């Protein structure tokens, strides 16, 4: 109803581009704005924090006085069984966890976009083949296969984990984008582009993809949080980022053996994961509302 009422637009003095409007709507979503600040602080802390703490990552304290100390003014998050400062390790682990979160989402998106866009735009046999393959990948339980892959792919680095998560993470994006392209390719502006003589590649990348950006961004935002949890789960099962490189997941895995005597080791890395994931979820939700296509006809 409101849409109909305000249909008569008056060209305003400011160029109200898409991103300007998204920003305007996002600002109204208090939790999303709060999450954005929170995430910014977490990222800044993890990236720059370790330069300012008094301890280095693997610096061990005095074997009698510094081992398994409860949080204090010297060690904000306490120390672990080797006398390492947990605060420093959580910040450093955050770098790795965030890196894994962002880069695995990015790589999965690349695959998902290409598969989804071509399947949705061309349809027919290409679509059938790609989508059956997607169905197969979807039907395989991910976690056990992640375990297998992590023993098959050589090396122990962070990039291996990114690759593994990406291999099993592109299907959802591919399905979302295919669905969008299926409807976008029938839209009149696509037909207009075809009538002008724009090539298929031009239509896919220049006309359709920018219109599919909103769900892609939302899915990516939600995905970062999800993949951080994934990495943690893999680490917990012993197949994630390998120590001594700390990640939130392997700090936690390490902590479970000391659960009875040093509960602080469990609290802080877990809360770090939880807060970061909530942040990305709220931000993603806010973006979904702010980018709702029904708002910008």
């Amino acid at each position: 109803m409101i849409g109909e009422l305000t249909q008569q637009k008056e060209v305003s003095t400011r160029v109200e581009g898409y991103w300007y409007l998204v920003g305007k709507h996002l600002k109204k979503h208090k939790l999303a704005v709060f999450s954005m600040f929170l995430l910014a602080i977490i990222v800044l802390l993890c990236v720059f924090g370790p330069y300012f703490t008094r301890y280095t990552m693997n610096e061990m304290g005095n074997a009698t006085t510094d081992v398994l100390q409860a949080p204090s003014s010297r060690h904000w998050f306490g120390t672990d069984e080797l006398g390492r400062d947990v605060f420093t390790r959580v910040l450093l682990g955050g770098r790795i966890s965030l890196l894994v979160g962002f880069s695995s989402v990015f790589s999965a998106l690349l695959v998902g976009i290409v598969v989804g866009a071509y399947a949705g735009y061309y349809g027919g046999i290409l679509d059938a083949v790609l989508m059956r393959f997607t169905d197969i990948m979807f039907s395989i339980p991910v976690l056990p296969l992640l375990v297998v892959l992590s023993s098959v792919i050589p090396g122990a680095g962070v990039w291996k984990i990114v690759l593994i998560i990406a291999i099993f993470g592109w299907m959802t994006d591919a399905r979302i984008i295919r669905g969008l392209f299926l409807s976008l390719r029938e839209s009149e502006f696509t037909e207009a582009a075809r009538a002008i003589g724009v090539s298929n590649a031009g239509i896919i990348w220049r006309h359709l993809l920018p219109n599919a950006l909103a769900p892609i961004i939302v899915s990516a935002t939600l995905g970062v949080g999800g993949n951080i949890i994934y990495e943690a789960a893999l680490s917990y099962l012993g197949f994630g980022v390998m120590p001594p490189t700390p990640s939130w997941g392997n700090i936690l895995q390490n902590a479970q053996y000391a659960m009875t005597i040093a509960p602080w080791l469990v609290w802080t890395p877990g809360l770090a994961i939880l807060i970061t994931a909530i942040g990305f979820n709220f931000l993603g939700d806010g973006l979904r509302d702010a980018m709702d296509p029904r708002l910008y006809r």
Partner: protein
Amino acid sequence: MATRLVEVQKLKKWFPIKGGIFSMTVASVRAVDEVSFFINQGETLSLVGESGSGKTTTGRTILKLLQPTSGKIIYKGKDITKFTADQMRPLRRNMQIMFQDPYGSLNPRMPVGDIIREPLDVHSIGTRKERQQAVATMMETVGLRPEYEKRYPHEFSGGQRQRIGVARALIINPELLVLDEPISALDVSIQSQIINLLQELQQRLNLTYLFIAHDLAVVRHMSDRVAVMYLGKIVETADNDELFDHPLHPYTQALLSAVPVPDPEAKRERVILQGDVPSPVNPPSGCHFRTRCPYAMPICKEQEPAMIEVAPGHTAACHLLTKR
């Protein structure tokens, strides 16, 4: 003698319907079913019909936005029916289309200047600066302020968006413009503005229009010749005044009498057609219109009526006319 710009012969466009266990083609939507007509240079031919009559599909098939199932499309004496996408590309400069939906036909993520300029980019016409100049000129021609080129479609009203659509279609100087219900989504007071713009541009640029519409009042105002479609077939073609003053086909007559007239004192004979338009998947045998025709005869069921020229330039397909 007027030159023929486009000629369509027995054009057919069927859309397959998949079904069954193995997704085979089980039936077809006969959107356009052996349609023939021509358009002369510089004139406006209107294609009239209700939804499901196939008029929009006809328009898009002529531009090869849809591949015809069979039949021939001849553009300036060249048979373009079998042209590939690459072969069509240069021809796209000569034939353009303007769409019905002012909200769906402009890419919402592109500034309008880019939308209007894109045809020039695609066909590599002029230098960057020349293109920019052409966009500004075109925007002024259609009644938009050139300063607005950086703005996005959502910042414009329906009428302004249709002006953008016209500008995009005309910037490469086409000869033929297919107007697919260009004004039916607009408010009454805006409709007349766009009608006037289209007519003015036609005279100034010597354009040929294929005007697809369901609003008969607008058709009368705009066209030189009119073709009436019903369920995938053309049932009657004639010059504008001839068709409106002497409709021959029972469907045309019913259609004309169904249109409400803005005059409370006009008392007219009304033919109210019974029932709905049948499904184009399974059209009636013989004459497609017979199920709703007040004059249906036994022969209408058995035999499809042929198109006959009743008067010069006035053709219709109805068994009543052969009997006479």
